[in-house]
């Protein structure tokens, strides 16, 4: 029950995207730019922390039979909160993230952690787990978004990196739908190689 372990679990060892294959939909859709990835990551992490907190707090009060719908209502409430607050105070980010803000509700990571961790562990550990998973998710998105934005647009965080010559003829496919799939495939393959190396080195 080490707190630090809970915190760092979600970053590499059980990274929600690369290892647990959760949260794929927003992961592929929102990573067209690093800015969007960071925004979505922050929003999802916020919802994750809040939901893990409440689920863990009430874990002995919510009856088992009706727990999934309850978790869903809790998650949906926080998502709607994030939606309203973002619309009011961060309208540009709200516009870019578009339909994927309400879709944070069905981000398998949040329900997955509520069902798979928070309902069986104390509040502090659950919050630590949420923070770790959120960071892991955001990091994963920033990695893919970096590739997609650099290759497909020549920029990184809207800063011109590869020059205007590149910007006129970028590798457009990276920023279109297929690019997300293909780049993710290669990243997962890369992680497989890393795992093999680690396993073989023992």
């Amino acid at each position, binding site marked *: 029950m080490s707190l630090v372990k809970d915190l760092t679990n979600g970053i590499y060892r059980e990274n929600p995207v690369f290892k647990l294959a959760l949260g794929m939909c927003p992961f592929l859709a929102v990573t067209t730019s690093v800015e969007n990835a960071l925004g979505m990551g922050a929003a999802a992490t916020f919802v994750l922390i809040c939901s893990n907190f409440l689920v863990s707090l009430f874990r002995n009060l*919510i009856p088992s039979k009706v727990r999934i719908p309850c978790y869903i209502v809790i998650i949906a409430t926080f998502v709607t909160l994030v939606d309203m607050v973002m619309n009011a105070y961060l*309208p540009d980010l709200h516009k870019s993230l578009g339909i994927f803000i309400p879709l944070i509700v069905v981000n398998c990571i949040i329900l997955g952690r509520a069902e798979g961790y928070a309902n069986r562990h104390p509040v502090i550990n659950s919050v630590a787990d949420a923070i770790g998973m959120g960071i892991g998710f955001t990091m994963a998105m920033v990695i893919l978004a970096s590739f997609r934005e650099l290759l497909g647009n020549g920029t990184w965080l809207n800063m011109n990196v590869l020059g205007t010559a590149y910007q006129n003829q970028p590798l457009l496919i990276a920023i279109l739908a297929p690019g997300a799939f293909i780049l993710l495939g290669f990243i997962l393959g890369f992680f497989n190689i890393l795992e093999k190396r680690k396993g073989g080195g023992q």
Partner: protein
Amino acid sequence: MFKLGLILMLVALVAAVALGLVNSRTAPIIAVQKELEKQNAMNEVAASLSPGDSLAFDSLSVSGLGNPYAVCDNTLDVVKVSVPPDTSRIGYVFIAYGKGYSSTIQTMVATGLEGRVSNTTILYQQETPGLGANVENPSKLIGSFNGLIPSEFILKNDGGGIDAMTGCTITSRAVTNSIRTGLEAMNEAGLFTDRTDESENPEGTVMESSTEGGVE
């Protein structure tokens, strides 16, 4: 069984109340922001009608104005532009709605009294990033709209004179055609018949000759 349903209802009720509270705080802010955004956009597009002057916008109710945007469930609302304290109109602003590749694109258009477009800006689009989304960039497509009359709003691909953005024919066509249908509806309602009134429109004579050249 009944107790389970009751607990779920309780959770849902607490949730609804919490949301209601936050909504009452944020909804007004959102509404104000939307209005501000619209005002800013109108000021931006209409600026070229009378550079340097502060403008007033009043919605017009025009009888006989058709609604070409009913297909995408929107209405053609025309706003009259004037320079206060003078209430005579110097031009119009309207929003054109066109079904693009993956979203309904909203373009704000400012025209002079003779139907010549003076400036446009994209209000809303959710097209492909890196491709159709570039329509927001004035140098890509909408920049070529300035000074055109309604009949000139046709893509080269469709037999007209406007270059579509490379690889974004659908987005380009949506914007172009939506502007044209809006202008044509306004023309049919008689909003552009002021071209003969030289006191309001100093460009009147220039307009006449170029109209003849433009109609092909």
